[in-house]
Every structure is written in C-alpha cells, then in structure tokens.
C-alpha cells in the first residue's frame, strides 16, 4: 500500500514565489489496484507521482510505501525499486545503445548475477511485446515502441507499483492502444499496481478508481462511472467527458432510457 499522509509540497526556488503544489493531501492506494489520476495542467498530478516514489520528499507530512517512509534516505533505493515511474516523453528516458542495454540499465545497478539480469530482461521485453527488438538501436523505434522499452526498463526492476505520468500524450492512436493494453495486462496477469496519470478521459475509464485532482487537492475519488456521472463539476475542474459518455448524456436528457452514463463503445453497442 502507498500511504500519503497529510502531505503538503511546496516548490521553493530562489527569487521566485513559493508554489504550493500539493495541499494537505491524504490518500491510500492498495496493492494490487489500477487507479487513474486526472486533473488540469498544474493540478499537482506529476508532483504527487514524484512524491510517491521518493523523487520528491514532502515539505510536510509523510509518504509511506509498504511501510517505508520516503524520508528514510538509506532506504530510498528500496522505494525506487518498488515504485517504477514512466514519464511522458519516451525520448528523454532512453539511454542504451540497444534495446537490451536500455532495459538492463536499472537492474545492472542492483548487483544481480548475469543470469538473473538475463531472466529479467527476457521477462520485461516479452511483457511489453518487444522481444524481437532486443538488439535494435532504440532511436529507430516508433514513439509507442520507445515507450514500451521505457516500461520494460521499469519492469526489469520487478516493481510492485508502476506510475505512468501521461505515457500516451506524445503517441498516436495505435501507440496509445499498445501502451494501454500492456498496462492492463501487467495489472491483470502480473498483479502489478498501476497508477495512470492522464488527460485522456477514455483512458481513465480503464481504471478501477479515478482520483480527480484540482489545485493540489483531491476533489473526488470514485469508480469511472461515478466520476463521469458528475455533471458540471467535471468541466469546472478543467476536465471533459469521454465522447460516448457525452452521447449517452444527450440521449438521457432527451428521455432515452439509459440509467447510467455509458463509458465504452461496447456498452453503447449493448444498450442500443
């Protein structure tokens, strides 16, 4: 479980105004689970992600990952191993000359035997469907493939949690679908907890629970259906509804017998 206890985070830079990014926030994310975090730009999503794996340390309050406080400096690597972070731009995360090297980088620093590293690379690459590209130079991959390699690099650490910070923003529809399928499989088959930060409401629908952040505070936690059942609040927080949900609301308003918001194309198919 990741416990966020009364956490406030303030960015302090010289000659600049202090910025309170997270305000007295409480949150427990159980394991395994698949949660999404949504919110407008500047709502604190990325800050929260970085607090959860110890890249940032709370100004006030505590973040506790499976019993370890992120303030315990000597155990920070344990936390980073448990909580993997995948960023938005795959270009900035690739360091190896080959896909294999890139995936191995993290676990080579763990002092593992070559055999163990080999096994982890095999596991990581097959989990993201990139086995064939093992000896490929990463810069020749598509955006979606690069992002899969970035996820494999995190997977090789055998994390218990993976936080993905807008992993599909730079990808086209195909790349987006690839990543979302992988994320879902990691959760369902490997029981790795997924925390998906996204601007895309269709992606949030895939999660078990959705957290809405606004201005450093949690405004709402609920199932996707509860979240997208909210009316004007969604827009007030800078968000939107999935397109099918918009259609179902229009139908509802005009007397069509739909009792809950439709969230996916498949649901739409069933109720028409």
């Amino acid at each position: 479980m990741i416990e966020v206890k009364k956490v406030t985070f303030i960015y302090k830079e010289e000659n600049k105004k202090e910025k309170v990014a997270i305000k007295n926030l409480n949150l427990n994310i159980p394991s395994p689970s698949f949660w999404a975090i949504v919110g407008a730009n500047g709502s604190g999503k990325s800050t929260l992600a970085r607090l959860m794996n110890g890249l940032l340390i709370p100004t006030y309050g505590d973040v506790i990952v499976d019993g370890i406080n992120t303030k315990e400096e000597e155990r920070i690597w344990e936390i980073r191993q448990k909580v993997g972070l995948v960023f938005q731009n795959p270009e900035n995360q690739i360091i190896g000359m080959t896909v294999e090297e890139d995936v191995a980088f993290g676990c080579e620093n763990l002092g593992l035997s070559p055999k163990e590293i080999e096994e982890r690379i095999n596991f990581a690459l097959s989990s993201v469907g990139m086995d064939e590209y093992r000896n490929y130079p990463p810069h020749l991959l598509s955006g979606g493939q690069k992002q899969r390699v970035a996820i494999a690099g995190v997977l090789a650490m055998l994390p218990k949690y993976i936080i993905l910070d807008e992993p599909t923003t730079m990808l086209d529809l195909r790349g987006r679908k690839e990543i979302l399928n992988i994320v879902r499989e990691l959760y369902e088959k490997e029981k790795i907890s997924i925390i998906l930060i996204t601007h895309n409401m269709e992606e949030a629908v895939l999660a078990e629970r959705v957290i809405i952040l606004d201005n450093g505070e949690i405004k709402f936690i609920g199932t996707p259906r509860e979240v997208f059942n909210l009316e004007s609040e969604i827009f007030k927080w800078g968000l939107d509804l999935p397109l099918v949900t918009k259609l179902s609301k229009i139908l509802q308003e005009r007397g069509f017998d739909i009792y809950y918001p439709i969230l996916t194309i498949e649901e739409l198919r069933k109720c028409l």
Partner: protein
Amino acid sequence: MSLIFLENVSFYYLKNTPLERMALEEINLSINEGERIGIIGETGSGKSTLIQLFNGLLQPTKGKVYLKDKDIKEWSIKEICKTIGLVFQYPEHQFFGETVFEEVAFGPRNLGFKEEEMEKIVKRALDTVGLKYEEIKERTPFSLSGGEKRRLAIASILAMDPEVLVLDEPTANLDPRGKRELMEYLNKWGRGNKTLIIVSHDLDEIIPLIRRVIILHKGRIIFDDSIDFLFREKQKLIEFGLELPQILQIVKVLVEKGYPIEGYMTLNEIAEVVLAYKGYLASWKH
C-alpha cells in the same frame, strides 16, 4: 487558381546517403483559399514534412510546389511569411521575447509593418486567441500557463496576418480545458476567406473545425475528401490498419445496429437519429 499546389512531390531525408529515408511519395494536392483542412496520420506518416513543403522550409526531392501558381522557389521568404503562417509543435519552446508584446511584435516588425500600428496589431492578435492585451503585454511569456503560452505562440504568427494558418499538433500536451479553448478560438479565426490547415493524430479533436480531411499513411495520401465522405468510408481506415477515432467508432456501432447515419454528423445530430429510429428498429427485429 490553387492557393497551394503540389505536383508529383516526393521527399527523401538524407537522399543519396546510406541513411536515406522516404518521407513522402508522389503527393498530388491542391488547396484552395478559404478551406478548412485536417491532416491526420500516425507518427512518421509524413504530416510534418508535408506542411514544411508548403512554405518552402523543405524543398521537394522530386516534383514541384506552387504557391498561388508560382513556384515556391521563386518566392522570397518575406512574401511567404506574409502568406503562410506555420506554427510548429511546442511553439512555446521558441519564445525569446522579454515581454508578451515583444514576442508578438517580432514577426510583423521583421515584415516591415509600421511601428505606429504595432500596438493595434499586437492587440488584435492577442484578442483572437482570447488573451487580454492590457493584462499581459508587459509580462514575460514564461510566466503564462501552458494553455496561454500555446495561444501566445499562435498569436505571434497571427500578428503577421497570414492568409493561411498551418498548425502542427496545436493541442499537444494541453489539458482538456486548454484544448477546448484553443479549438474554439481557432474555429472562429478567419471564417470566410482565411485558410486553416491543422495537423493532428487525433481526428476527434479537430473534427468540428474542418471540412476536408487528408490522411497520410507511410508517406502517401490514402484519403483526401470531405469529412462527410470519411464518415461513409471509415472502412478504408481499418483496411490500412489505422485505429478509428472515437467518433467513427460510435458511428460504426450505430451503422452496424441499423441506424441510418450517412455522412458527417455532430453528437447532437447522432443522438437525434438514435431517438428517431430506436423504436422503429426494435419493432422491426421482433
């Protein structure tokens, strides 16, 4: 007269080297004044290359590019800038002005617009994208929010009053509100005589703004027709292995269920069809 005309254009990066790579192949394209066009396609399909041919930033490896019936090679850079405004991806990464005013005034000054008109020009450009001149003219561009920065970058191109505005993935990285706002301003811009060309990998976002869609796939044009026609021919996207945008997924389900949806419809119009035919379709099945 075509505004932009591409005749048998191919473009290869690093031609005649071992790293040679085809980006565009045999492109024939004619764009007329006042059109509203979306260019869509996957990453690497050639979208960004194509628009850089429009304003001569790239020269075709084969074929010819004409702007107003004159070979683009015969145009001066200043003339091109007055005609075509190109907004790159992440344009805010290129800010250099100390103030918002300076940032917006840079382009028109270079094109020789009169200094005494500069305030009016800057104000009008900022207005177009919903930024308040008096409130932000003295601020540094870097102090604006993500959505405001993007709009400022677009205003700095609009200040040159181009006849054609070309935007490369204008909503990338914006949150849903930022996207909505930007799309509303772009939709209003230059209705009637100005030409709008938007490159995107997400048709859902730009669909209300455009009438014509060009789909690139592996460097070739696989579709160039009205939005209306795309709604009928969505199968074509599937044949090429492309993912359907949400709106077309919805339409596909409805058509499969027997709802008569032919051609482009907004969500409201789709809802009307559903309401009108639901009972009829149900009784027919029984």
